[in-house]
């Protein structure tokens, strides 16, 4: 990464061609059964390290438009964050601005952050079928504060499903981190 920057290759080009391109290959191999979760995790970890090096150069790159601001949180009463962290790393790698609120985040704090950050997307994560209902609570809170129409809501986590996403009024269900990036990209294209 440092070598590429030193050679004068634009940070935006590295992001799009090397990192995003690389992750697309990883995603394809995962779908085809050639790669497994550890491959995805190792790739995500590599992207995380690469993004730390690349970030200062990206802000300086005038021609790179961010795809949007993405708030990520594990919902109230749920402490699980492995999946959320992987999604976060991959979203960063895909060119989204990320604000990670961490775990056990109440609906009101998520709504506050959306308002404060002017976020375009919010990703809600839950691993337990006892905590997934707080995703619905969060959406209700967004409606109550008239924020719902300003933001796209993506949900994910083991107990969730497309049916559940429809039931609680989310915009999309993402079955894994690749689906999250793909969905966010698709929604971002429609938005900008």
């Amino acid at each position, binding site marked *: 990464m440092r070598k590429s920057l030193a050679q004068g290759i634009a940070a935006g080009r590295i992001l799009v061609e090397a990192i995003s391109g690389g992750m697309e290959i990883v995603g394809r191999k995962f779908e085809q059964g050639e790669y*497994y979760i*550890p491959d995805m*995790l*190792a790739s*995500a*970890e590599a992207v995380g390290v690469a993004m730390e090096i690349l970030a200062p150069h990206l802000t300086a790159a005038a021609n790179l438009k961010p795809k949007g601001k993405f708030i990520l949180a594990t919902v109230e009463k749920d402490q699980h964050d*492995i999946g959320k962290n992987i999604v976060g790393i991959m979203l960063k790698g895909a060119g989204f601005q990320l604000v990670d609120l961490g775990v056990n985040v109440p609906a009101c704090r998520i709504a506050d952050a959306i308002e404060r950050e002017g976020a375009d997307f919010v990703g809600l994560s839950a691993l337990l079928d006892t905590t997934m209902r707080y995703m619905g609570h969060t959406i209700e809170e967004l409606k109550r504060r008239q924020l719902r129409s300003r933001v796209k809501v993506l949900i994910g986590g083991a107990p969730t499903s497309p049916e559940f996403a429809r039931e609680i009024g989310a915009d999309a269900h993402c079955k894994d981190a690749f689906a999250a990036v793909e969905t966010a990209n698709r929604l971002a294209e429609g938005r900008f």
Partner: protein
Amino acid sequence: MRDGLRVKPYARLTEEQIRRVHAASMLILEDPGVLVGHEEAAGLFNRGGARVKRTATPGLWAVSIPRGMVERALSTAPQVVRLGARDPAHALLLDGRDPCIHFGSGSESNFILDLETSTWVCKDDPAREGIFPTFKKKRGTVADLCRAAHLAENLEHLDFFIRPINIQDEEITEQNKDVNKFFACLDNTSKHVMAGLTDVEQLDHVLHMAEIVAGGRQALQENPVISFITCVVKSPLELVSEATERLLRFCRRRIPVVISSSPQGGSTAPIEELGMVSQINAEILSAVVLSQLAAEGAPVIYGSVPVRARMDNLHDMYGAPEFNQYNIDCVQMARFYGLPCYSTAGVADAKVPGIQSTVEKTLSHLFMAHSGAHLIHYAFGLLEETQTFSLEQAILDNLHIGLVKMICQEPQVNDEAVDRSLAVIRKVMASSIRLFARYTRRKLHAGELFIAYPFEGDSSADTTLLRVKEELERIDSLPAKPLPAEIRERIFREVPGLLERLRQGGATSAYTG
């Protein structure tokens, strides 16, 4: 040489209990002793120091074997037996003191189970339909045996091949059965081939065939591509005439032989553990004594197949918990004597593949692997108390045996492993996302991890057997590794009785006609 899996054997019997069983067996061999239905064998026992008396039944002798004769035989029976193979990479080395396990097939089922699939429409809701397997039993043929041997060649965890199907084609007679079954095996698998002999007069023809395959008489001694099984004992405690004749001939030709006994707890042996194991141990030892009297140093294998009687029909019962108890004890006895052991696992009482067969097979696969038996036969495809063989079930068994082998692997706990683990834990704890992904990835791509059940079904129905059927079709289409053409031609020229349709060899489809 094929690597067996060395296990830390599960010791069901304590050292003291082993000595008690041994002592009980020695007492049984003295009184009541064994019945011997073979005149020459009775003479050998007599000259060796046993007390031999005629019984009221003509041609049957009562033989009391003193402890010293057993000890002498055990001192000359080899501790190490080599089983060769057409491909020397598949040869097996069995060391009576080294618990190194190998799995094999067996054993001459009369029926083969064809799996068919058909589409079924739900009676209550005709819009719903699904594909489900059904089974059809048919009598085994030479073509089926060729196909089974070809499958065996391609099953990773099958270490030695015993014909799983009895060949019952119209042209097969008692006289030509042995040469045809051995040829069908040798021409379709390069692994070790083991079988019983139907007609003892065919021994020379079968051995001549094996010599041609191995490259001569001396080459066969060094690389015995075949070995024999003989069920010498009719329980309780009788050495029967024909099988005893076979044992004497095998030993004199110095071809490895399994001395097998299969008493049935509850009918031909006591049902309780000590009685059963003491009796079968005495039965096998009596034949080991005879083998060494006939040919000192002859390579013999301790073959224990104790089963329990099923109470409602007196069939052999392989799914009974006692089956594992009896068999583990026998493996311990063989190891106590330093003899290579041929044991049993993987027979289902169930008639078709399914939940019952999986439970019955897996319990014995797991326990007998842990026992440390050198040759675990019957392990592939057998259903209905060995009466039926299923190719699809053999594929499932291969998968499950692979899992059992992984479970049996010795733990790697040493200074190097501790240093490596600590280094990884410290490195991951110092990272931002604290996941062991990269380390896991290395293990994954080194092929050291079980990924997932390869025949996993979807959520709407159990589709495992449908997937196994696809796998069988894939294996069927793999190229055969027949004997070289010049060897096949020489066998056909010099060994009488072979079916002409076996001459072509090659793809399994050639046999099905």
